[in-house]
């Protein structure tokens, strides 16, 4: 219900992230006959976690497609279709599967406009879903946004709220460039106020989720929600106000938003869903240090996954993912608050996760 606080004038209709994605696809398809949707499982009974449900019934087999297991080839096919006037939306149920399409994404989609002097462009959207939990393991739960964001010519976005999912997917499909639309699986069921009308959210701007002046926490995707939980607990229990930025876009990075916040707080934490080395968290910190070194009162901090693959075992993943507690601890280290106080103990009790650590909610009973 994040948007309700910031835009109360909007109609208070609640949708999940997955429903918001579906509505965006439906509305764009209604508006623009050039839009097609293709992916492994798009028209199947599970419909990509219900995010494509009913689209084939409404728009037919000429616009909504299942796909052979041929990720690189079909990415090329979609690029070709985009070059000849269509606006394909491709879906990968796991971002890990998109690695098979690296050649087409990096060598063709990203370069076409540039290497042909702007004479043609590739209006392609690729939805990629980051898995987590229930033993997704080394090959089904990677957060590879930095790997894609390293490539000029690609736009990479990671919306957090259902409101942004709808608005940014619409913007992505209308955009004339290849846009990688990365969805965290644990966001799919989270509700937000989502207006019924057709609206756009820009692809290059983060936004403030929670205002504060103690520490800036710039967070990506699911980590933005974890940071918001941390922010609420810190404010209530210790009266510490951190500023949480939902970065929303990975390439381009909204460095300006972070700089503005850091000028106020002087302290920066970047919370990312990915491995540490080469992460976008590191890139964001580099840019802030380059441009506002004198505004920093202390060293910046990266909160990321450890630098090793995600294990499958429930027991090994128990402390693998950083969460609100990780953020709180880093915040308190930066501002120098005593972590042995009663307030801190109460804070820990408030943010402690209830139920199993490997499911997005207690109703979930696996497997994905």
């Amino acid at each position, binding site marked *: 219900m994040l948007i309700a606080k910031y835009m109360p004038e909007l109609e208070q209709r609640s949708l999940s992230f997955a429903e918001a994605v579906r509505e965006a696809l439906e509305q764009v398809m209604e508006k623009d006959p050039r839009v097609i949707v293709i992916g492994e499982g798009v028209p199947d*009974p599970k419909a990509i976690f219900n995010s494509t449900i009913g689209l084939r019934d409404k728009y037919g087999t000429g616009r909504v497609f299942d796909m052979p297991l041929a990720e690189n080839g079909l990415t090329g096919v979609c690029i070709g279709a985009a070059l000849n006037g269509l606006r394909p939306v491709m879906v990968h149920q796991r971002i890990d599967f998109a690695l098979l399409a690296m050649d087409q994404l990096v060598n063709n989609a990203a370069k076409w406009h540039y290497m042909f002097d702007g004479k043609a462009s590739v209006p392609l959207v690729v939805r990629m879903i980051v898995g987590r939990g229930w033993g997704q393991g080394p090959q089904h739960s990677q957060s590879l946004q930095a790997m894609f964001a390293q490539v000029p010519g690609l736009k990479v976005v990671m919306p957090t709220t259902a409101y942004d999912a709808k608005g940014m997917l619409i913007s992505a499909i209308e955009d004339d460039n290849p846009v990688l639309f990365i969805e965290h699986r644990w966001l799919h069921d989270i509700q937000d106020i989502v207006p019924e009308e057709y609206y756009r959210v820009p692809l290059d701007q983060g936004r403030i989720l929670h205002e504060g002046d103690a520490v800036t926490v710039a967070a990506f995707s699911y980590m933005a929600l974890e940071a918001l939980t941390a922010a609420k607990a810190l404010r209530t229990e210790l009266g510490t106000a951190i500023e949480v930025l939902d970065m929303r876009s990975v390439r381009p990075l909204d460095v300006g938003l972070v700089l503005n916040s850091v000028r106020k707080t002087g302290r920066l934490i970047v919370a990312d869903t990915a491995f540490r080395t080469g992460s976008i968290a590191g890139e964001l910190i580099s840019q802030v240090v380059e441009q506002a070194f004198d505004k920093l009162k202390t060293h910046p901090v990266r909160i990321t996954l450890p630098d090793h693959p995600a294990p*499958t*075992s429930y027991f090994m993943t128990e402390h693998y993912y950083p969460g609100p507690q990780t953020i709180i601890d880093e915040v308190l280290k930066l501002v120098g608050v005593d972590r042995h106080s009663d307030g801190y103990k109460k804070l820990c009790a408030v943010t402690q996760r209830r139920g199993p650590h490997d499911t997005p909610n207690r109703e979930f009973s696996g497997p994905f």
Partner: protein
Amino acid sequence: MKQVRAMDTVEQSQLFHSMLRIRRIEEALARKYAEQEMRCPIHLCVGQEAIAVGVCAALNQTDLVFSNHRAHGHYLAKGGGLAELVAEVYGRETGCCGGRGGSMHLIDLSVGFMGSTPIVGGTVPLAVGAAWAATLKRNRQVTVSFFGDGCFEEGVVHESLNFAALHKIPVVFVCENNDFSVYTRRTERQPDRPMFEIAQAHGVEAATGNGNDVEEVFNIATTAIDKARCGLGPQFLEFRTYRWREHCGPNFDDDLRYRLPLEIEAGLNACPIAHYRSKLTKANGLSGLDIDRYELEIQAEIEVAFNFALSSRRPGIEDANRKVYA
């Protein structure tokens, strides 16, 4: 080259036992899955046991196997340790990957089970490479690559077929055609043409057969493996079969209605184990007493494996950062 000969009753009983064992293990995993202690995706091979058993029975212990996400049957048929499989699915330290992999990542190098992974097509070129290494090292090892009809759509499969044919590599490609990729029927993914003929067009010798008839699988596989071993080049086998349960998870999924009740019924009626039991019983090769004994033995073995798994140490995050590099 060996001629395929009629099997004796001992060999037949072994094939039957191996299929029954895989079935009972998969069913035990499915039953216990509801307890929510196996916290990883599982892809059960119930209904498809004959291919794993028929092919692996035609291999030597020193031959190699690579597999995919639906690997339990391949792993067990090749001789992979049951206790290590169950412990892996339970995320325990004694699992075949120490808990790092779960059901989708199995390995038992002691019996030539080289590894299974869930990225479709990921291990097909690895099988070609392993088999190529055998020829470069001048030994007579054969490598089998198990994959499904969906995998046949991956470019890397065709790149692998091409290279294997070019170098006459002793690899046997085994395509388990159950007609579905997750919930998507093959007709929505491929034109109407036989997959094995595509392999032939690559210059790879190919054959096809009923994947629910374990002796047919065994005979076809024996011939193909023998040819590969004798330097006659790669072989491609397409076996038709049927997946009884949901793509991923322990349950049946008839409620999703992506396949008709008649089709499911036909699939269940083609049960490789029931058919073989009936055949062997009629031929007096197998008695009801034998089957009862098998059931008891298998049940006991399963109990031991589950007890082993559940009493094994739970690894922690302190174990998770090891083994990133050799």
